[in-house]
């Protein structure tokens, strides 16, 4: 269904946020719009914000659910800072989201839900649709419930069903405004609600009614279009961060010839990983919902000792609990992966908000000198590659790896170029299959990986444990010089990985005024800010570190090629301290610890400041 009656206006990018009560179907609406947008070839990034934990009362501020999407003809990396369009299905949604709307942005409101009761519940003294509180914006207030009612007049539906379908009206309207097709949504509705034909019919009629409404009212002079973005050729799908992590893990297991053993304990925002992997039994993935965080990682160590690829996932508080056990994995040099989907801390913190303040914890959060490998994913699609890389390092080097993600990546989504699995390289494991020549702590020179002799293999009986061990024989040893050798060895096990890492290659200018060094989910915002500043002829480069321990081999010398180094982080300066301490450079931090992602503008302003100085 295309629109022919109004003129078209082209823009580069649009940011839309669908908001409403959690029972209003905003996730459904947003995800349908996303799919239609993907099919039309725009680059996009999304961020759903849903009160997933416990039910909030209908119409309350805590019950607001939102779905944000930015789509563009350029390459974009974030779901957008300020909104062009805010769909506010009820007053609570308007209240919590209005501040993110650009001046002169468009508000689309369902008047039917702006009742006295709802207004009071969300703290509006007067109805903002009726006074001049929204004078800075373009307001389109419609009684969607009545409009849908009209469209389904002949169907004799209950009031509740009609009001449930008003989200489709909003979707139809916004689809018309931005020249999206309705086919994919219609097909989805037919399939998803196949068991309820009257719901299918009501939703489709509501959708079309919304679409036609745009066409008929005078409010809209034209339809906005966004051209296709340039993508590498291939087959794409939309993917969410936590899902991408799981794909990376099962791919790595297959390439390494191992079975996955996963254990976890439910914790926001990592629980999805447990859910998703529990559904892969036909991949022979074993999942174990442990009684607590410690049992989760300890059972992983047991499984790894017996030859599985062991993985556990948690968030900040769970990482704290796993400290002693992770130390045991380091001491016994076993390949396991710990996923930390970071959230705002300290302590219980803000479980649904994002932060990246667990870097120090990953590096230093254990007794004694206990180095682990630390990696960080930088976007939802990148979670696939980083998860694969984490497993590769763990298996090829017989060492535990911590992979840092965060709440923003966990639920955000973006298009993903689906790899051909036959082109993904195999991973070499150190399983010892012969029955002689085994020495549990004999290490391979190139990787310092020890032989992985697992129970059930004849002749390889041996004992491991957390006590200090002799560097040659692996027997318990309290010898002073041996201890120091082992301390150094465990550090070397991490350092040696850098040998095979690709050197850093800054994007943008290879030398110049400012180098922005980031890690984690700030990738998109930094990329856009760097592009913008370079368009204004500043010499700016961007390094986004996936490997945080060890660092890539030439990081130090690269930092010296710029006059200023800026480190944006959602913490109080952790990578900043590492870079300053390790490389003795006067790097500056952009530190935002508000439970929200860093914005493009914030990075841009800081770059300009440094470039100008």
């Amino acid at each position, binding site marked *: 269904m295309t629109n022919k009656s109004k003129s078209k206006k082209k823009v580069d990018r649009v940011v839309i946020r669908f908001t409403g009560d959690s029972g209003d179907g905003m996730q459904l609406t947003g995800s349908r719009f996303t799919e239609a947008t993907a*099919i039309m*070839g725009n680059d996009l990034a999304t961020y759903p914000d849903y009160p997933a934990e416990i039910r909030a009362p209908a119409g309350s501020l805590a019950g607001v659910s939102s779905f944000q999407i930015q789509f563009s003809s350029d390459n974009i990396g974030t779901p957008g800072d300020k909104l062009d369009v805010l769909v506010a299905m009820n007053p609570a949604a308007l209240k919590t989201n209005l501040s993110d709307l650009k001046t002169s942005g468009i508000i689309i409101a369902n008047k039917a839900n702006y009742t006295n009761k709802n207004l009071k519940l969300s703290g509006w003294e007067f109805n903002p649709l009726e006074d001049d509180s929204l004078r800075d914006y373009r307001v389109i207030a419609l009684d969607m419930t009545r409009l849908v009612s009209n469209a389904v007049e002949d169907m004799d539906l209950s009031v509740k069903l009609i009001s449930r379908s008003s989200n489709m009206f909003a979707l139809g309207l916004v689809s018309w405004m931005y020249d999206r097709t309705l086919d994919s949504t219609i097909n989805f509705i037919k399939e998803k609600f196949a068991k309820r034909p009257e719901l299918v019919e009501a939703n489709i009629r509501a959708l079309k009614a919304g679409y036609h409404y745009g066409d008929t009212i005078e409010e809209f002079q034209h339809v906005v279009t966004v051209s296709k973005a340039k993508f590498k050729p291939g087959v794409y799908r939309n993917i969410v961060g936590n899902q991408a992590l799981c794909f990376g893990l099962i791919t790595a297991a297959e390439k390494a010839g191992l079975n996955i053993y996963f254990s976890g304990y439910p914790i926001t925002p990592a629980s999805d990983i447990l859910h998703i992997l529990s559904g892969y039994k036909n991949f022979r993935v074993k999942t174990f919902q442990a009684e607590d965080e*410690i049992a989760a990682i300890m059972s992983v160590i047991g499984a790894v*000792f017996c030859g*599985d690829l062991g993985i556990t996932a948690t968030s900040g508080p769970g990482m704290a609990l796993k400290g002693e*056990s992770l130390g045991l994995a380091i001491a016994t040099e076993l390949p396991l992966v710990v996923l930390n989907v970071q959230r705002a801390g300290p302590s219980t913190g803000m479980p649904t908000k994002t932060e990246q303040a667990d870097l120090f914890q990953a590096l230093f959060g254990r007794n004694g000198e206990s180095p682990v490998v630390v990696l960080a994913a930088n976007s939802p699609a990148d979670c696939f590659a980083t998860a694969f890389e984490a497993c590769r390092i763990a298996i090829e080097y017989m060492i535990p790896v911590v992979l840092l993600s965060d709440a923003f990546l966990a639920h955000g989504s973006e298009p993903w170029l689906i790899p051909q*699995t036959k082109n993904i390289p195999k991973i070499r494991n150190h399983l010892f299959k012969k029955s002689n020549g085994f020495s549990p702590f004999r290490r391979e020179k190139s990787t310092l990986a020890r032989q992985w002799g697992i129970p*059930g293999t004849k002749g390889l009986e*041996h004992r491991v*444990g957390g006590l200090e061990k002799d560097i040659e024989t692996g027997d318990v040893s309290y010898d002073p010089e041996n201890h120091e050798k082992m301390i150094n060895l465990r550090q070397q096990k991490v350092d040696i990985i850098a040998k095979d890492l690709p050197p850093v290659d800054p994007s943008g200018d290879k030398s110049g005024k400012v180098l922005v060094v980031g890690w984690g989910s700030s990738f998109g915002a930094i990329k856009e800010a760097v592009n913008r500043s370079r368009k204004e002829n500043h010499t700016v480069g961007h390094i986004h570190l996936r490997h945080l321990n060890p660092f890539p081999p030439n990081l130090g010398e690269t930092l010296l090629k710029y006059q200023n180094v800026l480190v944006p982080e959602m913490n109080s300066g952790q990578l900043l301290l590492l870079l300053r301490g390790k490389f003795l450079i006067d790097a500056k931090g952009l530190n935002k610890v508000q439970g929200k992602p860093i914005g493009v503008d914030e990075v841009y302003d800081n770059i300009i400041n440094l470039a100008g100085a």
Partner: protein
Amino acid sequence: MSDQQTVTLSKKDFVSDQDVRWCPGCGDYAILSQVQKVFPQFGIPKENFLVVSGIGCSSRFPYYVDTFGFHSIHGRAPALATGAKIANPDLSVWIVTGDGDSMSIGGNHLIHVLRRNFDLNILLFNNQVYGLTKGQYSPTSEIGRISNSSPLGSVDYPFNPPLLALGAGGTFIARSIDREQSHLQGILKEAYMHKGTSFVEIYQNCWVFNDGAFESLTEREMKMETQLILEHGKPMVFGKNKDKGLSLKGSKLQVVKLGKKYSIDDVLIHDEKNKIQGLLLSELSYDKKFPTPLGIIYKEEKPTYETMLYDQIEKSVQSKGKGNLDKLFHDSHTWNV
């Protein structure tokens, strides 16, 4: 994985090259010896054994048995053993733990491994004291124990190990003593044969920090009167002349002397499958008015965790087909560029 053929092994195959370093006179030596004698009798290859421990004197055990072993961290052995058993269900897994390791810091993992009923074996070396850290009272020490951390006597009520295990849903609960060699061997064999979590409490003497804790049970003169050897299907009699027995009065146990008033018919028959009786017998642990039950207190058969898990996996492979990555990745809305 090796062939499941019967192999002939002997005790010396299970002796490792490590110097055994418990205090001379420690009950652990006796237990080690029985385990090393019994393991070869199971007829399974040596590489299929896995011994897991936590921290404590008991937990040095794996170093002294020449099998695969893991000396892990305080209290966490059951969790590690769980992962191992799921990864390789064919292994014969033995958890060696102590009263502090399993009932203090490890309490949580203990009750969950019992509840889940994995086919593995827990050997609890109960010496009612913290040995390795020099003598503090433990969760199984009797109330009033004087120790370094309780100079005026502890005010803690103790855990009753078999009662705790029963309450946690344990499917095999037994007790033996470090010194009763043949009895202990028999119990270890029964534990191995039971398909489910086997919980074996072994009274062990720490002569350095808690000497004589079980003297009344092991002293030649006394033990006849204090040991109640349980045998399934047989009446629960004890005493040098087998002249005393346990009887039920209402819902409580009582000791009766056989003679004019009570005959053998008044004595309760031990029924391993009777959970209520198991509870009553467990209650006797700290009661000096009764003999101490030794042997299998309770036993039941039910499917193990790993059997049910692998069942689900096989069914899933059958119904969905073996997992295919490319198919999985494309199982969503895709578009071509």
